[in-house]
């Protein structure tokens, strides 16, 4: 009895494919560290990555940004620890220093992971490379205000954002309210509400909604003038 050649090829293909998939499953369950190490990548310096991409630096930045988003999203849903996040954001922004979204969202991700000095470093790097973009000093001011409760530093960065062309219509109002040092919960609410209004990103929208809900609950149970407690100082522009 002879087996026809295409049938034999198909059989080998299916059997070998199934065996490969099975072996991969066994390998991953027997050696979970392999998956864990792949998840925590070795990141080469930007100076090494740039030549490898033969001038397509922006494309390299996009690829590392994908990796950053997947890394943050994966840990956000599990242990909420991000030991490699700063290096990923730093590499992405070093490959393309004009990638404003990466500074903004990378800084936000880092501040959500309570890595405030790293987040501030990313925002400052973004401001240095994009001195005409008001969004970055604004975001840094927001972090000082909402997360660190450092009102003087927040005010200084908001003022810097306010001095740049194209700033949001709400920035002068925030500056004025912070200068008056009253209604700080309202100011915080306003910041998240502006973020909700201006973002076209579903993920950021959900996050802003969650923060607004928390602040409103706080507003109902606390005096309206309660401010975030100061935890750091001297973070203003140098």
């Amino acid at each position, binding site marked *: 009895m002879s087996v026809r050649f295409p049938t034999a090829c198909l059989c080998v293909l299916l059997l070998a494919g199934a065996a490969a998939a099975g072996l991969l499953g066994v390998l991953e369950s027997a050696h979970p560290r392999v998956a864990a190490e792949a998840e925590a990548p070795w990141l080469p310096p930007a100076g090494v990555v740039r030549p490898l991409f033969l*001038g*397509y*630096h*922006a494309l390299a930045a996009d690829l590392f940004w*994908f990796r950053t988003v997947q890394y943050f999203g994966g840990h956000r849903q599990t242990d909420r620890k991000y030991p490699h996040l700063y290096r990923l954001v730093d590499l992405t922004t070093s490959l393309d220093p004009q*990638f404003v979204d*990466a500074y*903004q969202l990378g800084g936000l991700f880092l501040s959500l992971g309570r890595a405030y000095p790293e987040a501030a470093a990313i925002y400052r790097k973004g401001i240095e490379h994009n001195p005409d973009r008001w969004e970055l000093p604004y975001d840094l001011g927001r972090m000082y205000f909402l997360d660190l409760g450092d009102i003087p530093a927040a005010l200084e960065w908001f003022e810097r954002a306010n001095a740049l062309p194209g700033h949001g219509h709400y920035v002068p109002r925030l500056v004025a309210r912070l200068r008056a040092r009253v209604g700080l919960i309202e100011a915080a609410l306003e910041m998240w509400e502006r973020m909700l209004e201006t973002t076209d990103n579903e993920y950021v929208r959900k996050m802003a909604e969650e923060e607004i809900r928390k602040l409103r609950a706080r507003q109902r149970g606390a005096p309206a003038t309660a401010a975030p407690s100061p935890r750091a100082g001297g973070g203003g522009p140098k």
Partner: protein
Amino acid sequence: MKTVAIAFNTFREAIRDRILYSLLVFALAMIGGSVVLSKLSVGGEVRIIKDLGLAAIGLVGILIAVFIGVGLVYKEIERRTLYTIITKPIRRADFILGKFLGLTLTLAVNVAIMGAGLVLIASAMEGRLTWELLLPVGLTFVKLMVVTAIAVLFSTFSTPTLSAIFTLALVVVGSLANDLKLFAATFGGPLLQGVVAALYLVLPNLTTLDVGGAVVHGRPVPAAVATLAGAYGLAYAAALLAGAVWIFQYRDFK
């Protein structure tokens, strides 16, 4: 007129090449796939589509220029059709220029298709016509003309395999020209710096023709910079073609 006839003949021959369609389909799939890929990102979705699209046009264009370009002259020698051509009253320069223009026309059609695909997708995502992408696409086409000229130059005296290796090597060096200069300035002594400075002038600087990053970030590209970059590319391609004609003129086909 003879140059034009050879160019159209080369174009007809190139569009029959299956590798051309494989690469074109790959590029269009890459541009279309960028929409799906951008959904994986948080922030910068349109930017990713533009970056990936421009990279696809550049990379696929380079592959077309190299793999079709390196065989342009060699195939004619191998098939012995060249002997029929050079016995006719056709100058060898016309033959080389015709071959170059034929492949350039093929690349122009391909770049136009890929560029239109990218502009359509980016416009649909952004809700406005993204005309500004035409500038990096146009300068990518000039870059491909330089690569084609390199491939034609090597094709006049070498085998397709060696020509492909040499051309790709020059493309790599040309894409790293600025890094090379920076490296020498940072780490090298006066001798290395002098050698690199000389090489910098002789080797193609393909980075000057890359304005995609600036356009995608919405930064203005001054008209003078774009014009000078385009003129540099055309002048470099012309110099390479002159070299190709010179070598081909003195080549003995006995």
